[in-house]
Each structure stands twice: as C-alpha cells, then as structure tokens.
C-alpha cells in the first residue's frame, strides 16, 4: 500500500513538472510571437506612412508643376523664369520621393508594376515639359515655325501635357491603393493571428484551469482515501491494544476466580518491598483437598469462585485481592488502612470464608487459616521470602487446628 502511494505521488510530481515546463515554453513562445506581431505591425504601419507621404508629395509636386505650366502660358514674361526654376525643383523632389518609395522592401509585384508605369508616365511628362519649355521659352532664338503662341501653347497643354499628368497621378494613386490594400491585408492578417493567439491563450487558460481543478479533485480524493486508511489503521491499532491488554490481563489473572494471580502480586509489590510498609494477609481454606476429592474438581472450582466473589464483594475497597494458588488468597491492604484495622478486616475475611456456601443445593462450610504480616520496608528481599514467612504462619495456624489468624513478623 505504501509503495503504491509513493508511485502515485511520483506520477503527480511528473505531471507538475511537465505542466511547469509547458507553461514556461508557452509563455516564452507567447512573448516571441507577441514581439514578432508587434514589429510586423510597426513595420507595416511605417511602410504605409512612408508610401503615403511619398505619393502625396509626388502628387503635390505634380500639381505645382501643372500650376506653373499654366502660369507660364498665362504670362510668360512675368512668370517664366521663376516657374521654370520651380518646375525643375519639383522634379528633383519627385525624383527623391520616387527613390524613397523604391527603398521600401517587400512591395507587392502588382504595386511595383503600377508604380513603374506611373514612373514611366512621370518621365514622359518631364520630357514633354522640358520640350515644351524649350519650344515655348526659347522660341525666339529658333526657327519661327516652332515658336508657340499662347493659343497653341494652351492646346499643347490640354492635349499633350495634362493627359500625361492625370494618368501619372492616377497610376501613382493606383500603386498607393494596392500598397495600402496589401498593408491593410497584412494588418488584418496580423490581427487574425492575434485573435487566434488570444483564442489559444483562452483555451490554454481554460485548459490549465480545468487541469488544476482535475488535479485538485484527484488530490482531494487521494487525501480522503488516505484519511480513511488512517482511520482504519487507528481502529485496528486500538483493537490490537485492547487484545494486548486482555492478553496481559490474562497473564496476571486467575481465570477461575477472576482475581489477580501470583505473577500480578509479584509485579505489584516486588518494587515496594524495598521502600514501603504494608499490611499483607495470606488466607488459606482449610481441608480444601477433601472437597475436590469428594465432590470433584468442578465442584471445588465452583466453590472457589463463590468464595473469591464474596471476598471481592466485601473487601476490594480496603485491599487488593490476589488468588495466588488454588485455595490461597492474598490481601494487600491499601496505605490508608492502619495495621490494627487491617488485622480486624483479615479476621472478618476469615469469617466470611467461614460462611456456608450453597452449590447445587449442597451447603458447604470450610474454615480458613490466615497469616497477617505487618511488613516494614526491607524486611524481605523478594516475594518468595515474604510468602515463605507467611506460609510458615499458615502452617502454624493449621497445626493449631485452623480457623485462626496468625501474625507473622
């Protein structure tokens, strides 16, 4: 049973170990995943922002160029130089933005393609603007036929420049839209992963909670089982104690009379012989052997039982009673009984034994001889020495005809 218990304990320890390791791995993984998602989101947001800034700057510049071209057409003398300067600045800015746009990695193929188309339109537009400037601004130095008057310049603008500019802007928008859509998709993906992750955490939490509940239930059940076993054990133990006590009692008791026997007497007073004073009386039924001989042992036993019951009934308050041998009884008086009183009680005891006892309608009366010993400490070395003195007293009494109390010294 104990071995089994140990095994169970070992198992649950394993469970906790594995659970602990799983928890550590899970937390580490969560941190890693969280960090990854976070950096992914940041990167995506940065890319979106960068692209938006680039595209809107490009569009702003294109609009400025457009405005400048219109201003040049409206009043070439007044605006031309400044505006031409501004236009070239705008294109420098556009170039810079396009470079920046190209720096962003992981662009979708479609977006890149659209962006390249937009770039081609921008370049065509730039070329057109340059040739427009050349034709329009420096017309005077060239063949007159190529000089554009304002009317023709307007046509050139609406028919050749504006469509290019509009298309380029639209293509940039398209590229930006694709990029934005992709980024949003990425963000949606990230959020989806995040949601799944949360769900997973929930599952882990609920699972962990359930595991804790299950384990605690199991532990509870086990401890209940243990308690039960302990109680059983206790009960068994007390039973054992009871039987042991009984066995002990049996060893120091005369089964026939229910009185303590000689071993008990030995046990009880041997230790006291060295230090205590006490009054002891030995009582012996006279001619008892004849009863056994005449009526049989059963009858004798019955007679002894009745005598001992009577003695117990009368004197167990004043003295400890022992049945040290078949027809011999010993009284060890309690300390509060004075020796004279003890002597009187001893005589009463002889009287009691002298009564008529009726067994199976046969009245029976046997006298008894007593030997009283007012013992003082260290007078005897052991019980045997004590008993020898007292049996000698009995003999003395019997030789006098019995039914007397002899005092021994």
């Amino acid at each position, binding site marked *: 049973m104990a071995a089994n218990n140990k095994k169970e304990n070992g198992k*649950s320890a394993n469970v906790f170990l594995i659970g602990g390791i799983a928890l550590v791995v899970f937390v580490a993984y969560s941190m890693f995943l969280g960090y990854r998602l976070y950096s992914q989101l940041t990167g995506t947001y940065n890319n979106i922002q960068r692209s938006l800034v680039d595209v809107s700057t490009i569009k702003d510049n294109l609009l400025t160029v457009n405005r400048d071209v219109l201003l040049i057409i409206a009043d070439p003398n007044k605006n031309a130089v400044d505006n031409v300067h501004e236009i070239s600045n705008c294109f420098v800015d556009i170039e810079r933005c396009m470079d920046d746009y190209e720096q962003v990695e992981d662009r979708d193929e479609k977006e890149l393609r659209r962006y*390249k188309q937009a770039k*081609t339109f921008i370049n065509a537009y730039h*070329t057109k603007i340059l040739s427009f400037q050349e034709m329009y601004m420096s017309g005077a130095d060239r063949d007159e*036929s190529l000089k554009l008057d304002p009317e023709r310049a307007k046509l050139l603008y609406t*028919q050749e420049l504006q*469509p290019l500019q509009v298309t380029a802007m639209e293509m940039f928008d398209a590229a930006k839209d694709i990029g934005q859509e992709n980024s949003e*998709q990425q963000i949606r*993906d990230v959020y989806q992963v995040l949601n799944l992750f949360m769900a997973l955490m929930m599952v882990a939490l609920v699972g962990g909670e359930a595991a804790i509940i299950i384990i605690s239930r199991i532990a509870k059940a086990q401890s209940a089982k243990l308690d039960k076993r302990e109680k059983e054990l206790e009960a068994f133990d007390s039973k054992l104690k009871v039987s042991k006590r009984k066995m002990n009692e049996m060893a120091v008791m005369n089964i026939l009379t229910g009185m303590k026997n000689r071993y008990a007497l030995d046990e009880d007073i041997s230790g006291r012989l060295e230090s205590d004073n006490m009054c002891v009386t030995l009582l012996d039924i006279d001619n008892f052997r004849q009863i056994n001989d005449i009526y049989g042992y059963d009858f004798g036993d019955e007679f002894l039982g009745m005598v001992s019951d009577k003695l117990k009934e009368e004197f167990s308050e004043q003295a400890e009673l022992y049945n040290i041998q078949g027809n011999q009884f010993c009284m060890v008086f309690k300390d509060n009984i004075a020796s004279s009183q003890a002597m009187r009680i001893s005589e009463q005891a002889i009287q009691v034994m002298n009564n008529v006892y009726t067994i199976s309608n046969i009245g029976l009366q046997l006298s008894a001889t007593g030997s009283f010993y007012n013992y003082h400490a260290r007078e005897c070395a052991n019980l045997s020495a004590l008993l020898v003195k007292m049996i000698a007293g009995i003999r003395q009494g019997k030789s006098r005809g019995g039914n007397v109390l002899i005092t021994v010294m």
Partner: protein
Amino acid sequence: MKNKRIFDRAAMCAMAFSLVFASGCGAEQEESKGSITVIVKSQDPYWDAVKNGANEAADELGYTIDWQAPENEDVAQNSYIEDAVSNNAKAILIAPSVAEGLEDSLQMAASAEIPVLAIDTDIKSSAKLSCLATDQDAAGGIAARQTAALLPEGGEIAVMGHMENSPTAVGRFQGYFSSLPHTNSIDFRISEGYEDDNVLTPNAVKDAKQSNTPVFDLVDIKFCDNDANKAIEGTQELLDAHPDLKVIFCTNQTSTVGVGRAIEQMGLQDQVQVVGFDSSDEEIEFVKSGVLDGIVVQSPYNMGYLGVRYAVKSINNYSIPSSVDTGATFVTQENLNNDEVQMLLHPENY
C-alpha cells in the same frame, strides 16, 4: 492516465500553433466584390488592350470583369446593357458604337443605380457619369502639330477618313484641321457635321508665308468605309489626281493600314508623308520602315484600367471627373523605342 491527458493537451496545443502559422503564412483568397460589365464595340487587338487594362484594375480592386465584345460594330449594344442590369452588375463601362439609340437601356441602368461610364467614345446621356477617352480634338491636334513639324514648308494635304458619319472621324478631322494652318481648295460639301472652320484668310496666308509658317492646302477628302482595300484604291485615286500631294491624314487603323499599303506598293514613302491613327502590328512595321511618318496612338489599356478604377470610385461614392482625356501619343521612328511609347504599345510588358 494523467500523463496521457497531458500529451493530449500538448498535441492539441501543437495543432493550434501550426494552425496559427498556417493562417499567418497562407494567402487568403479574397471574395470578389462584384462584377463590372465592360461592353466594347468589336473584337480586335485594340479592345484586347482595353480588356487587359480593365482586368488588371479589377484584379487589383477585388472585382471581376464581365467582358462583352460583339463580333462587329453593327451589333446593337442595348441587350448587353440590359443583361448587365439584370445580372446586378456593379458598374457598366461602355464603348458606344452608335451615338444614339442606347438611351433607354442606359436610363434603365441609371434607375437601377448602376454607374455607367463611357470609354473610348463619348455618348450624350444623362445616365453617363464620366467618359474616359482620347479627346479626338486633342488627338487630331497632336497629329497636326507633328505634321507641321515634319513639313515646315507646308504643301498639299488630303484626308482618308474611315467612315463618313463616324463621330471619331469627325472629331479627329476637326481637331486636326483646327490645329493645322491650312487653306481649303476643295468645294467643301461634306455632310454629317464635317466643318472646316479654321481656314486661313488670304491675308493670313500671306503673313504665314512671310514668317515661314507652313501652310497646307486641303485638296481632297475620301472615305474608305472601314475597308483597307477601298483605302488603297482611294490613295491611288488621290495620288493620280494630285501628284504634288505631300500629306495624307488617315483617321483610323483601317484607313491608315490601307494608305500605308498603297504607299508601300507605289514606293512613295519618301515623297508622301502619311499620318495615321492607332497601332496595329502592321502599322508599327510601317512606322519602322518609314512608310508611315507618324501615328497617333491612344492608350486603350489606360482606358480600361482607369475606366474600371473610376467605376469603382463611383461605386464607392467618390466623385469622379465627368471627362478624362486618356491622352494620345504621336509615335514616330524616333520615339518608337522610348519607354513610354513601348508601354503604350505593349502594356502587358510593363
């Protein structure tokens, strides 16, 4: 028992993790937001380019294209519009092959709150939200300026139109001649809206000659009815009647190809300048070999692409301009290999 439970849980966790990774890595298939019907005039490479642009825009914006291309321009487009309405199209892009006769169908689309945008050719209708096309005036103007640049001395000029009552032919003609300083030596009696209102006065001609500005003399206008062979015959007739002819202006692909073939057959590529429209492979070859001196190339790809983008904008209730000029480019031997020209001719490579 308990150990087994732990392993079960571990297996579950592993599964969940792999799920997380799988979903993180896996590209998600996006649902289409709807269908945009594109109705064009006929089936040829020009419309294929429109289709290409439309498809790419739709793909980028999460829509699908319902492509409707009749076999030729004579097929009435009403049924296509009505089909689009009954199929719950999100928007309709139409290249109207006729100027009138579509109004009822277009109104039906408008009452179903389907945005309608015209591409390539404008149409007069209150249902139309926007038009994405090459401004024919502008295209003609570009051709005219380039013609003037090609021939600073001016000279006799004739026109090979593709169809007498075609709005594109009228637009291109007017755009061209309003930007070209010219005189008109023919008795101009062409019906259906052809008006030459930019004829130089005699004084202006004198001034122009003094300032070395080129002056062209419009000597004849012919129509080939969209038939290349007719255009070849017409070219021969023109050259027979006007041996000093310097320029032939053609108004579309068929007429340009016809005139180009005729000039090549007669070996007159150095003598007669041909300015045409559109960009079939044959025309590109003619440009390379010098038969054609310049062609005005529109951007059908951009019409399709921007058309769908604007359609989606209007679906999402953004305002869009009522008219967008998708531009035209004059392609010559010189700029044929430039990036922007190649992108116009072969948008699929860019």
